């Protein structure tokens, strides 16, 4: 159990910087998920915490101790790997016992700890098998058993579910979360799957190009993305982005889209944006914030020709164009239009986002 701190951590390979100054403060017992596209530096950061990669600059502290110079075995961490990394020539029991044997614990205690861990993860009957005789889900469980048996200060997960099929992934996801509730330990979990990030995390760290874009609770990330990148990465389908201009006066703001369409900014949001009058912006709106016709306050009508409809069951993805930009709306299937018809849509401007076209940071912050 420990706090985990990263202070301006940099990882460089020659002139290329894979991680460019990451500072994080992860609380004791917190479940933090690193998420981002491939090559964003999330795995490298995790591996630096684990001690598997050398830290080029900056500091990492577990508890009160700076661990930069400690080997991975001395950091009191446990890691679950993407491909499980179970020792193929050892039985499940030996796999789990290995780390305890390295700590030179008495045999009786080792056996007792294995039994407890196996019970927690329901793998007692697998203890005498070899990893090669296990299914993907079972291997995953053994890998977790190997991690929990040592009672570490920090758990590290490196995309542990990406080798499982979709159904099993959902099951293991809830299981990892339940395990964390059962054994509350500081956890860092790396994934490229934003659904995993949203569902599991106490706080999510969105990374891009070696830097932290935003660290926040999942719901805040969704509602108040700090940048265009976070807005586009979190939420499925992705947020729509349109080039626009913010015009009008402080009390009567509106957005002018490329094709001249004017969208009124509701009074509830005017305060957020009134300092950015008369400038180019990127207008962001989630597919869930576009609906078929609706009269509620803050909803603005827009007329468009439907290009394509993808039914998903409860909702349908409706694609249409505004000016030259394609938009996607997630609409209740009951009200879904047919392709190639013209339709009045409504945009929920209460949920609008504006970003700076150059820095791509949110203008609401």
């Amino acid at each position: 159990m420990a706090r985990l701190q990263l202070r301006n951590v940099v990882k460089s390979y020659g002139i290329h910087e894979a991680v460019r100054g990451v500072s994080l403060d992860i609380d004791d017992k917190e479940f933090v998920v690193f998420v981002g596209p491939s090559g964003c530096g999330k795995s490298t950061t995790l591996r630096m915490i684990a001690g598997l990669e050398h830290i080029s600059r900056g500091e990492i502290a577990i508890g009160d101790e700076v661990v930069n110079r400690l080997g991975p075995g001395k950091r009191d961490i446990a890691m679950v790997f993407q491909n499980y990394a179970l020792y193929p020539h050892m039985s499940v029991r030996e796999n789990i016992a290995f780390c305890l044997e390295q700590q030179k614990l008495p045999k009786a205690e080792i056996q007792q700890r294995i039994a407890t861990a196996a019970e927690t993860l329901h793998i007692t009957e697998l203890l005498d098998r070899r990893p090669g005789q296990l299914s993907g889900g079972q291997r995953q469980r053994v890998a977790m058993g190997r991690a929990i048996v040592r009672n570490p200060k920090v758990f590290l997960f490196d995309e542990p579910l990406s080798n499982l099929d979709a159904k099993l992934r959902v099951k293991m996801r809830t299981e990892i979360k339940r395990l964390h509730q059962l054994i509350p330990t500081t956890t860092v979990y790396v994934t490229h799957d934003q659904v995993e990030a949203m569902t599991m995390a106490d706080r999510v760290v969105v990374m891009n190009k070696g830097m932290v874009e935003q660290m926040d609770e999942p719901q805040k990330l969704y509602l108040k993305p700090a940048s265009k990148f976070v807005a586009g990465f979190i939420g499925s389908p992705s947020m729509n982005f349109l080039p626009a201009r913010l015009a009008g006066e402080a009390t009567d703001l509106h957005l002018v889209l490329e094709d001249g369409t004017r969208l009124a900014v509701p009074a509830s949001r005017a305060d957020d944006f009134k300092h950015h009058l008369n400038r180019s912006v990127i207008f962001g709106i989630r597919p869930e914030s576009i609906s078929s016709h609706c009269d509620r306050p803050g909803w603005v009508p827009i007329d468009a020709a439907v290009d394509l409809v993808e039914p998903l069951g409860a909702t349908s993805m409706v694609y249409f164009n505004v000016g030259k930009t394609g938009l996607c709306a997630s609409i209740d299937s009951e009200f879904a239009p047919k392709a190639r018809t013209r339709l009045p849509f409504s945009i929920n401007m209460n949920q609008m986002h504006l970003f700076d076209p150059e820095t791509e940071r949110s203008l609401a912050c």
Partner: protein
Amino acid sequence: MRKLTTLHGRPASERLGDAALLLISLLLAIFFLMPIVWSVANSFKPAAEALANPVALFSKAFSLENYRRLEDVGAGWYVYAANSVLIALGTIVLTVLIAVPAGYGFAKFRFPGQSLIFVVVMATMMIPFQSILTPLFLILKFLGLQNNLFGLVLVYTTFQLPFSIFMMRNSFDAIPSALIEAARIDGASQWALLRRIMMPLALPGVATVAMFAFLNSWNEFLAALIFLSDQNKFTLPIMLVNVSSGIYGIIDWGALQAGITVTMFPCIVLFLALQRYYVRGLTAGAVK
């Protein structure tokens, strides 16, 4: 499943093809096994019959006479066999002791000049052994190891190493780095890592290295002939030559075949015993 398809559901032409293939394989096997069978059969004949003309492959009379006469060759065949065993074991142990850490180093560590050193090690494979016999002789003489079994072990190990290091590097390379990382996180020391994780997984490679070290040191003739001058220190291949060039140039075929059988036997047994590992070792890292 496969048996079912062979018995039923397969066209006659295909089954005929299989039969032909089997027949050809059998003929080839007989062709290659013949000399071995011939030697073994001859070695158990009475001496006179081994020289008879026309010869019979198998004789009705079973005799150990040839083996008994092998005892009269020089210091007796068992002395030479013991020497050969000592040299082979020494070469195996020394080769494995050096090649395993060297291969591990080349596979899993990064250090300056790594590729160059590896290329240099590999390049020594290109040097014909015979061309440096004289300098080797001088070095052994300088070390006082001439006419010494350990000296010969050193020579054999030297020539065994490039291939063995290459082999071990491939074996260690084939082990996923995630396993090593997992072990490091588990707190394994470098020694525990090598002993508990790497070695068991690289065992096929070690078996291959040991086998080649055995075969090459067991069968080697030229260096043994040159570096050993004391009759009591000769190895089996030298004994075989002594048998075949007997008094007045008469070749004692029976004794020679007995000697060949004795020499060949451990090779065949070892090969069969390690075959499973050996094949896995040679193809390690070929397909991920």
